[in-house]
């Protein structure tokens, strides 16, 4: 068990013939993801370098392969349309990696998804993707190979650890607005013998699909998740809402980090959504709100693994 995806999930790549789509399709296949094909309009009937079938439309791809998840690398001007195409074709989990989609496009897309496709889960855009780690079967470090997992996205698979490969036997869920900070949290957990059930990069854009609460809800319900690491940043109030929700509904420990304490007001910090507008958008305001809600918040991005180990009641040897 995990959330959203597992080893049996059949995955398509939208934009499979682009440089990024092709590169990461190979990376996902190597990790053990059940990639079943790709979509590039006009290239239907061909095969990619890995021998996967390419289709003209997502509907054709879903009919032929039975795919239920999609990894989207469509360029920004067409990405929102690609998301809606996947939803219309019946894809259940759409993971939009594309960075740089206009906000107006996402406002419209999110509204249509909510109205017409309420069962569809959108992850991203502007995110590293989602991974349910597999079990290590051979090799070490970057050369390790895994089976039974599902990686949809651009994260380095080898840093993740399945619970059965840990000394603690514990696994946490990770949800984050930032890609590389997620890797940092995964690394610190794996390093301390804490596995991961599923890691979801929800993305750095102001209007997106899944949010913190959607993930917390699923992690709380997942019997194989023992705790949650939640990584937020400046901009918006999603983390504060999530903290309040967690205080009322979560029985599992949640450890948080909010990036951007040193970020100046009014300056966009890379992510389209990472900009301090009002007093509630600051990292300090979010950290205090989360602490008031009873969550453990690490002051340092290097302290996440340690804080999680303590929260899980693991001994000093793990911390």
């Amino acid at each position, binding site marked *: 068990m995990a959330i959203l995806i597992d080893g049996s999930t059949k995955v398509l790549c939208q934009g499979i013939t682009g440089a990024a789509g092709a590169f990461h399709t190979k990376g996902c296949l190597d990790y053990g993801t059940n990639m079943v094909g790709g979509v590039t309009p006009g290239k239907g009937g061909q095969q990619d370098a890995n021998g996967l079938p390419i289709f003209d439309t997502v509907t054709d791809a879903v009919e032929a392969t039975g795919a239920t998840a999609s990894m989207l690398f469509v360029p920004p001007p067409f990405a929102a349309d690609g998301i809606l195409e996947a939803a219309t074709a019946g894809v259940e989990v759409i993971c939009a990696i594309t960075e740089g989609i206009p*906000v107006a496009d996402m*406002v419209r897309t999110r509204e249509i998804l909510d109205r017409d496709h309420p069962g569809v889960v959108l992850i991203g855009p502007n995110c590293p993707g989602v991974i349910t780690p597999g079990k290590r079967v051979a090799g070490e470090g970057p050369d390790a190979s895994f089976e039974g997992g599902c990686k949809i996205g651009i994260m380095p698979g080898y840093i993740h650890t399945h619970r059965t490969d840990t000394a603690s036997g514990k696994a946490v869920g990770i949800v984050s607005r*930032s890609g590389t900070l997620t890797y940092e949290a995964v690394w610190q957990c794996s390093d301390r013998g804490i596995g991961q059930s599923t890691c979801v990069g929800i993305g750095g854009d102001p209007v997106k699909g899944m949010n913190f609460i959607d993930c917390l809800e699923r992690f709380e319900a997942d019997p194989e998740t023992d705790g949650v690491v939640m990584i937020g940043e400046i901009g918006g109030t999603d983390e504060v809402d999530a903290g309040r929700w967690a205080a009322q509904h979560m029985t599992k420990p949640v450890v948080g980090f909010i990036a951007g304490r040193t970020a100046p007001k009014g300056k966009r910090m890379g992510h389209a959504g990472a900009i301090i507008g009002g007093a509630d958008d600051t990292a300090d305001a979010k950290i205090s709100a989360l602490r008031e809600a009873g969550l453990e918040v690490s002051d340092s991005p290097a302290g996440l693994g340690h804080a999680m180990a303590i929260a899980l009641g693991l001994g000093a040897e793990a911390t």
Partner: protein
Amino acid sequence: MKVHEHQARDILSEAGVPVPEGAVATTVEEAVSAAQAVFAAGGPLVVIKAQVHAGGRGKAGFVKLVKTTDEAQEAANFMLSNRMVSPQTGAEGLEVKKLLVAEAVDIVKEYYLAVTHDRARRCEVLIASAEGGVEIEQVAEDNPDAILKHPIDPLRGLEGHEARTLAFKLGFQGKQVNQAAAIMSRLVKCFRERDCSLAEINPLVVTPSCENHPDGQVLAIDAKFNFDDNALFRQKAIAAMFDPTEEDPAEIRASEFGLSYVSLDGNIGCLVNGAGLAMGTMDIIALHGGMPANFLDVGGSATEEAVAEAFRIILSDNKVQGVLVNIFGGIMQCDKIARAIVAAAGEVGFGVPLVVRLEGTNVGAAREVLEAAKADIPNMQVATDLEDAAAKVCAAVA
């Protein structure tokens, strides 16, 4: 992306929102003749405003009301020959290259009107208040009920009856109601068509009753527009309004290489991949008692050339007394960063301490590259993890 006030007025005007007559001047002579034209047409008062993106113009003396051409000359001369210093510009101030010269209209009442994105509701929101002309943040704090927030349906837009209802709620009278409602509808339409992130009219005013307009006229006096950078590919006319002289040259240079860079006040230069980790790196430096000199996200797919440029930008900042490289390679390959470090050392040299922390994709190859170059980069220390990296760089500059 931001634009100047005179450009915002043009955008409003094209969208059908009435603005008082005005002209742009780049010399004192042009400013005087523009003022003369207003006086000749019977306008008793002219406003001259410096065109810079920074706020605080009024208090700095860069917005002036004038009654004669002599006063216009004096005001224009002052603004074009002095740098504008305000709390938003920094001590060195800004050079003023353009002035807006416009008729100053009599005002009966001021309103505030804006459209922006409501992140929590995931839609656009029209913000309106009958208390315009002042800082809306202050109104929001002192009297939140004085601000109307109307969420806009992402698929339908703002309906006419919604705009009319808002106009009544704001207290517009008689023929003002339809004028105000039309302005709201047009501002929302403009926001959506032009991919704005902010479209603000402050103040929106009602002029006194006159022969042609017994109920007065509703006019936009000042406007501010910000645009979604991600949408500039389909907003060519807006993109063409970009004024690079209003931006930090280092930030522009960085963006040309696909780097995201923001200059800060500290002395530790940072080179990181990913926006969240870049902010986290700044934060951990502060926790160790240091101060970051910049935010720099090289992104995931930067070329070796772009990474080399990132080092050039960091090292050309004379505040920088130490550099921290923190890379967690996902798409980014660590060996690419390592080779860029070696190249930067050869080209510009690290005259300041350099601390490198690399993890993730191709980290083995990266460590070999750095090990081989160790003798040539005596200022370099390799860190074992993020905590160690922050401690080392802070100790090195202390």
